[in-house]
């Protein structure tokens, strides 16, 4: 298998990687960059657990795309949501609403949820449903997940408010 050099920015860190022709983006994230948060599920685009965000903050599936296609691009995985030791609002919302059971699909669900709120800060029911359609949770269902997504805006606003107060004090 021929190997090639490629550059990939994952969660703000730029990596120079040696990647073979038959590696998918998921293989590179998990086995080369060694970020194991992104899960390997069906590997055929049906389950959505390998979901990551592209540079535009959209949800894409890393299991059905050649890694080499992403040369020079920037992606965000579940590990990249946390900033300065603090969880992202969407992660806090998932914890607050118990939108997790076994947790296997959670990275994919959270990255899909993140893509929804990136695009629609206050998403409608329809927008949430459309954004979650490509990712499956087999234990808890999508009710609590949807509740968490609806609360993301409130938690994000509260965070902003707190930050503003902290600087004004």
């Amino acid at each position, binding site marked *: *298998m*021929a190997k*090639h050099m490629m550059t990939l920015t994952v969660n703000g860190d730029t990596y120079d990687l040696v990647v*073979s*022709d*038959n*590696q*998918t983006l998921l*293989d590179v994230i998990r086995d080369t960059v060694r970020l194991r948060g992104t899960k*390997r599920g069906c*590997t*055929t*685009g049906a389950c*959505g657990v390998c*979901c990551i965000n*592209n540079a535009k903050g*959209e*949800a*894409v*599936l890393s299991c*059905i*795309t*050649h890694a*080499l*296609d992403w*040369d020079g691009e920037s992606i965000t995985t579940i590990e990249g949501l946390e900033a300065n030791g603090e969880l992202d609002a969407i992660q806090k919302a998932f914890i607050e609403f118990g939108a997790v059971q076994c947790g296997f699909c959670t990275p994919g669900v959270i990255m*899909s949820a993140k*893509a929804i709120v990136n695009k629609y800060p206050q998403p409608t029911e329809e927008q949430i*449903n*459309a*954004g*979650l*359609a*490509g*990712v499956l949770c087999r234990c808890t269902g999508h009710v609590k997940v949807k509740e968490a997504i609806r609360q993301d805006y409130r938690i994000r606003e509260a965070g902003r408010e707190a930050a503003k107060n902290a600087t004004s004090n």
Partner: protein
Amino acid sequence: MLLPDHSYVTTDSLKECLRLLGENGDRAMVVAGGTDVIFNMRLKLFNPEVAVSIRKLEELQHVEELDDGGLRIGAGARLTDLEEHATINDRYPAFAESIRAVASTHIRNMATLGGNICLHTRCSYTNNSEEWRKGLKNCYKTDGNICHVIRSSSKCLAINNADTPLALIVLGAVLTLQNADGSREVPVAEFYTDDGMDHTVRQPDELLTYVTIPPVTDRTTFLKLAPRKGMDFSTVAVAARCDGAGTDVSTVSIVLGSISTNPIILDKPARIVSQKGLGDEAIAEALNHVRNELGNLTNLFSRASYKKQMAVVLVRRALIALRES
């Protein structure tokens, strides 16, 4: 899990891409979004020696407004970008609807229009892992000489599940196929064949580069029925178009998809409503003739009887939607 062995080449120039396809012929396969090709590679239904990536081929990703009021869309344009495109939603609402009907947001964020048009046919027998398929002899699609779905069939009967071509057919869209020596234009209606293995007229050295839609002011509609609403291949999908207003029409066209290896352009039902208008009686009469034109249906993915009945239901809904639009 690594993909099966193959070599990968990428190019940002159309000329270079066409040269690569010409050089490699059958051994090469074009990968744009990857959502269909890599899926089929996982199942070992596609075994290319060379994957030619056109993901960075920007000249095929634009939507261009033509002087006559039509649109020329690059085949490499992402479905997400097209479904949100103001001009497409404005001029071709049924086409926009057919794009939104494709798979999930995740897939549409990667998949391209050209990829959906060339979407490989599916079969409930072959679309399983290689290990699963070992239980039976190779079928036409896996280099054998039998069809496990209909034993007496002399060819592969896999289903074409693409949604966007239905809307493109009623809109009279034309595809541009290019190879290193030149290009040709093929109406979408003539792009598909009735052979499940080799289901389009595209040659291995050709690349689908542009989709040109003529200006259309007629009423159009697109409806899809699938096992799951959020993300699934269609059980039946329909696109329809008519001129006039209310029940008053002179030309109606109806195309059904996901029924067989190629989209089915309904002839007699369309003729009846063209002559008699979109009144309840004329629609009921037209529906009586839908089943006759569906051909040899297989039990692929859903029972043939259900599929036939749903085809009738969807055609009725489409004609009523046209009348009321």
